[in-house]
């Protein structure tokens, strides 16, 4: 075993992967796992019954084929994301020394090293898989744990083969998203740049977040037929959907701070820049806006669209105030989720919207030019 090589690969790929995706992983961990294990059921539910519900929910993992297929789909997306990340790292100039060193190593050693690296990258899904296997064995469900173990083995083996293949490739030029070709002839105004960046760099994240939106909207449509009468249900759905989009908003700030620093030299007033920010949120929420316009009257749809844009823009305001501090950002995002949920329950959701718009405008105005970039 070549431990020196493993250490270099670990530094270059595993640590960088978690550093780059910590926000998304943390978000899903809090949003999904906390729901599974810590949600408090409303009404008179005894502790025993609650434990029973949680066990039933967990057992679904190993007994329901549909649930299993859904989990495998998530794993597949996660794996594609890791492939995309590793391939991108290979193309970075400061990583190109790897082509010279990895090219001289035997295929079997390279495979084992890449297998171990992928095992570390997929650690969150391995932990989840092992948990499901244990649950299955305890409940005498042996087929599903076997399938899960084989899938995990397959994911890591295929990934190791793919990375070994990449290691022996010649340095290639940068590939761009095929989606960008669709918009090649379109004009690209300033406020539209981040949506284009998503299509180029954050496709998987967009797919996950929009899938989350579809699940929430579909669930609302099927289980609460009265949602058009009681506006609170759709307000809660929008609150959840916007919380899902918080990850993209974080990346918007990162994108602006990295690639659009020079834009602060452009002769646009703060108000114009704030309008650009609002417009970019509207573009991000186009599918949801379309849905709202179909299912609600113009006035209600307008209110709901403004409500969702106000939430998205207040997340940006927080980032302008505190910078790209992911822990602080998530704290505020979940704080807003709880407070605004209470506003909605007390039928004063519009107060949350007004607070968001005012707060975001103030934070944006005060902090737009206050940057912390140090370069001499």
């Amino acid at each position, binding site marked *: 075993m070549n431990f020196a090589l493993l250490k270099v690969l670990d530094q270059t790929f595993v640590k960088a992967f978690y550093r780059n995706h910590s926000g998304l992983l943390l978000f899903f961990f809090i949003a999904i796992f906390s729901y599974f294990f810590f949600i408090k059921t409303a009404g008179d539910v005894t502790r025993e019954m609650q434990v029973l519900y949680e066990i039933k929910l967990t057992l679904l993992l190993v007994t329901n084929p549909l649930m299993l297929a859904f989990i495998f789909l998530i794993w597949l997306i996660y794996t594609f994301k890791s492939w995309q990340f590793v391939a991108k790292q290979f193309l970075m100039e400061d990583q190109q020394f790897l082509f010279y060193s990895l090219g001289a190593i035997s295929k079997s050693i390279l495979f084992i090293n890449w297998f171990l690296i992928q095992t570390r990258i997929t650690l969150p899904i391995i932990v989840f898989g092992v948990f499901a296997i244990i649950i299955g064995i305890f409940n005498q469900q042996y087929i599903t744990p076997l399938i899960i173990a084989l899938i995990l083995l397959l994911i890591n083996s295929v990934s190791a083969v793919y990375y070994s293949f990449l290691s022996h490739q010649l340095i290639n030029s*940068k590939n761009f*998203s095929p989606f960008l070709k669709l918009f090649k002839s379109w004009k*690209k105004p300033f406020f539209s740049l981040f949506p*284009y960046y998503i299509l180029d760099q954050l496709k998987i994240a967009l797919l996950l977040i929009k899938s989350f939106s579809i699940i929430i909207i579909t669930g609302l449509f099927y289980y609460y037929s009265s949602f058009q009468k009681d506006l609170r249900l759709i307000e809660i759905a929008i609150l959840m959907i916007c919380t899902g989009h918080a990850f993209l908003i974080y990346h918007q700030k990162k994108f602006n701070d990295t*690639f659009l620093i020079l834009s602060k030299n452009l002769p646009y*007033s703060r108000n114009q820049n704030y309008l650009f920010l609002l417009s970019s949120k509207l573009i991000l929420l186009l599918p949801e806006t379309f849905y709202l316009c179909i299912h609600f009257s113009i006035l209600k749809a307008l209110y709901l669209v403004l409500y969702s844009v106000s939430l998205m823009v207040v997340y940006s305001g927080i980032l302008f105030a505190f910078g790209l501090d992911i822990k602080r950002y998530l704290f505020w995002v979940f704080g807003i989720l709880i407070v605004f949920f209470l506003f909605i329950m007390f039928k004063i959701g519009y107060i949350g919207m007004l607070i968001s718009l005012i707060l975001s405008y103030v934070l944006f105005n005060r902090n737009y030019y206050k*940057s912390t970039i*140090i370069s001499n």
Partner: protein
Amino acid sequence: MLHFKNFQKSYYSNPIIQIDNLKLQKGIYWIKGVNGSGKSTLLKSIAGILDFKGDIILNEEISIKKHPVAFRSVVNFAEAEPIFPEFLTGMEMIKLFESAKKGSKEQSEGLIAIFKMHEYINERLGTYSSGMLKKLSLVLAFLGHPTLILLDEPLITLDTEALGILCQLTLDKHHEGISFILSSHQDLNQELFPQSSILMVENKTVIFPE
């Protein structure tokens, strides 16, 4: 041309550069200083990219704090190591700046021709070399109707031919009334800009060398 009034730039309450009162007349200025002296910070502050305490006034009437849009309309900036969105083409980037800085299509095409960028201007920026990106940033800095152009380390990564083109363009624009502030950590080659003045960034302030 440019008046610094109680200018102070700090990072996390650590002062980087302080200029109590300094007036620069029209001309070409070379700002010299060692790495980390605050040259880029100063240029970014003048460009309106970084926030600072105090004020900078252009032509005795346009304050960066009181007239932020008017100030940014006539002060252009090129970064030392520009980073642009990789999915955009060079031409799309130029169109963005052309529209914001009120430049014209003819002006953009003229600058593309001067820097000989026709072959790759419609390629995505992710495929550009550092020299090509540098040329693009220089084109962006000359767009519109600037009265002051700030060039951060303009000599690095340019080939000899492009360097000659930049010097000639700078001198031509200077004769049209545009002022320049250029930064460098290298010694000034007087032959490049015969009528230029030197400014030193040292001891966290800007001075004319004796």
